């Protein structure tokens, strides 16, 4: 079996019918069931779907160009006016900016966590599976990453490469490598104890096959939950970077930037920062609830050993 086959079977599962990420497809059924059953899961799903869709279709849905300074400045929200959520200090329409902001913020959130997750999980998988010196080496590197001030990484990246979507994403993602590595390693250590990895070895599988075929799919559940939670935190991190002037390129609407810009106007124009604040909060809440629902869907105990 070639490496590419392997990657395919581990990640898309197309070679093994009815599976994704090596997880059986009835996960979806279970997931839907969880959502049906649990009000909180429903809320989470709804929020994530709503914000996700409004982000994707922002160019179609947003009433105005988010950059255009065409309205009077600092107009308070009025659902019946041209600017239902008011305008900012440049006279830009806040609703439009909020919708475009969702695009960047969610993309940065997802992208950052994906970056952190891919690197972190690889480190964790190898460290946990091989143990010994490899583990030592990798985990010391993780310790260093952990003890390294995250902001410094962010500031340096921005200083070197300038502000921009990808830099912010990588800068934020860096902070999650160690978390994913630790979690993945912990899971692998537990799974390594399971006899099926031993069984796979006894059948003649190579180490890398065991790692990606046997071990990885079984670590996915907690990792996905961590993934959702960190996505929420990455959205917050973006806002902190914006606050420090290290965010995505200036004038690009992101939730963090809206919040950061609005803070100077909070006594005169509360809506500029309160509304994106609420958007962040609702999204983060939604993603967390969504994560909880995912966890329930992954909970093997729930389906039980019959």
């Amino acid at each position, binding site marked *: 079996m070639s490496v590419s086959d392997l990657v395919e079977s581990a990640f898309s599962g197309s070679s093994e019918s009815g599976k994704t990420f090596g997880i059986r497809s009835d996960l979806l059924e279970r997931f839907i069931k969880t959502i049906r059953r649990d009000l909180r899961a429903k809320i989470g799903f709804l929020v994530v779907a709503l914000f996700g869709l409004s982000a994707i279709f922002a160019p179609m849905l947003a009433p105005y160009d988010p950059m*255009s*300074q065409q309205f009077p400045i600092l107009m308070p929200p009025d659902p019946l006016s041209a600017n239902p959520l008011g305008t900012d*200090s*440049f006279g830009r329409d806040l609703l439009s900016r909020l919708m475009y902001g969702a695009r960047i913020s969610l993309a940065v959130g997802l992208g950052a966590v994906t970056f952190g997750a891919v690197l972190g999980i690889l480190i964790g998988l190898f460290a946990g599976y091989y143990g010994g010196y490899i583990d030592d080496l990798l985990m010391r590197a993780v310790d260093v990453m952990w003890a390294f001030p995250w902001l410094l990484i962010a500031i340096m990246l921005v200083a070197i490469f300038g502000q921009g979507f990808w830099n912010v994403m990588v800068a934020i993602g860096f902070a999650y490598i160690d978390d994913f590595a630790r979690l993945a390693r912990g899971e692998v250590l537990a799974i390594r104890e399971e006899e099926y990895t031993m069984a796979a070895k006894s059948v003649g599988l190579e180490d890398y096959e065991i790692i990606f075929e046997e071990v990885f799919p079984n670590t996915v559940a907690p990792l996905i939950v961590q993934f959702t939670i960190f996505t929420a935190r990455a959205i917050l991190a973006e806002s902190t970077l914006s606050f420090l002037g290290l965010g995505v390129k200036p004038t690009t609407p992101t939730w963090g930037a809206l919040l950061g810009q609005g803070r100077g*106007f909070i006594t005169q124009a509360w809506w500029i920062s309160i509304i994106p604040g609420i958007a962040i909060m609702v999204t983060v809440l939604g993603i967390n609830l969504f994560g909880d629902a995912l966890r329930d869907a992954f909970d093997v105990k729930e389906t039980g050993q019959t």
Partner: protein
Amino acid sequence: TGDGSQPGSDGSNGGDGGDGSDSDSNMGGSIEAGWAFNAVEVLDPHYVDLYQQITIFSNIFSGIVKLDRNGEIVGDAASDWTLPDNTTYEFTIREGMTFHNGDTLDASAIKWSIERLMGLDDSPHIGKVADIESVEAPDATTLRINLSRPVAPFITFLTRGPGRAGTIVNKTAVEEDPQRYRRYPVGSGPFELTERSTGESLTLTAFDDYWETDSEGNSLPYLDEVVINLIPEPSTMWSAITTDGIQYADELPPQNARQVQGGGGSVDVAGVSSGEWSCLAMLCNDPASDEWAERQSYASGNDQPTDAWEGTDIPTTDRRVRQAVAMAIDREELVSTAYFGFAEPAHSLINPAIAWAYQEQPENAQMYNPERARELLDEAGYTGEPRFSGSILGTPTDERVMTVLQQQLSNVGIDATLDVQQESSYWDNIYRYNHMFMMYGGGGDIDPWMSWWKQLRTPMEEGSSGAWQKNLYSNENFDEALSKSFNTPNQDERIEYVREAEQIFLEDAPFAMTTFPLTPKGSVTQLKNVGNQIGLSNFHRAYLEE
């Protein structure tokens, strides 16, 4: 000064030079003040180059001369001065002045101070004393400075605040520990620095032996103590002053300042001109061109010019494009949206603080005219959609202005992206000449020379001409007019050359002028008489009303 045009200024900005109409109610008390700055480290005037530092040390030091509330140069340590010839300045020094450590301040102390600066290779101000041939102190009250050639703005270099060259440092303290002196300076001003905690606060305590008195003979300063807190977050500054956590704010967020204008509240705001001008500098030449490859290094210090422009067209090298940009800028809108009113539109380079040369709208002034701008761009051959693209380099403090400029440029079809860099990277980038537009400006300019000589004159291998060139502008006629102006101390003659240079500047438009910003300074209503000339915050005569 900027007084007349300050939006809603309430006249509380007493000076420390002229006779203030000081109230004689029970004057004294201590105040807390806020400085919108992250860190104030160096306070040795011969090293200081940042405005916020100047605003602090001008309370600590005396200069040979200083600016009064109208921005006129008046005596400080010198009671009077004369120019026996074009290259000699002779000062009469006051008697009875002492430094904070008790040393006597006389002509020889000043001589030592100037000579110290002349010997400091790493001082940013050494250029100001480069033309001094000798300093003499024949007696305690006479100080004579001989120049090697006439230098028209020389007296402005000797002012306490903006000029810095004439700020008098203390020999004993400097010699004792020059490192310590940078942080704990000893001067002869109305306050002495008694305590500082790293980056957080500085305590200025009244200096009992300060020489100056008010018109009734009461000794100055009135305040016993000023504690300067560093509050970089604007909204916090605002909260601090509205909750009486501080009584004075060196700089308030303009949007909040705008709120209290018209009075009624417990905070008074004064929009103060610090002689600041601000513009959009435009790259006038390709740094890698034959003409500039060598020349750019005189300004940038980079031996190799950037190849960022290789094979690309730089629209702003076309004078018509630059003129168009200057016309695309709606300065009134900029003032209201980006500055919340705390600025004046700038139509030329001479700022209102240079009262003798300032004209609000000189001939050919840069005025908002989008139609003409489009025509010019058409003429220059930029007719596409967008006409052309370029990036604007600026620092975080410029962001609001840049945002509005971006929109205004796009209105005439120019697509500008914003590149906001931290200060340090900003300087790095600006001398790499890899941006078409740069946010640029200057402050504390009390002489046209200050904004023009280093900024716009053709860079030379020797001397300071063009040393700060940001946009690689060069025009022989301009250079000529400037040289003449520099060597003509007589103001009436000099103004001719200044006007000549100004016209060339307006014709070539290396800068699209934007505004003369005003700094919103806030004080609680009880606090009176803080001297705000040239953007300073002088507490010499400030007092708290009961």
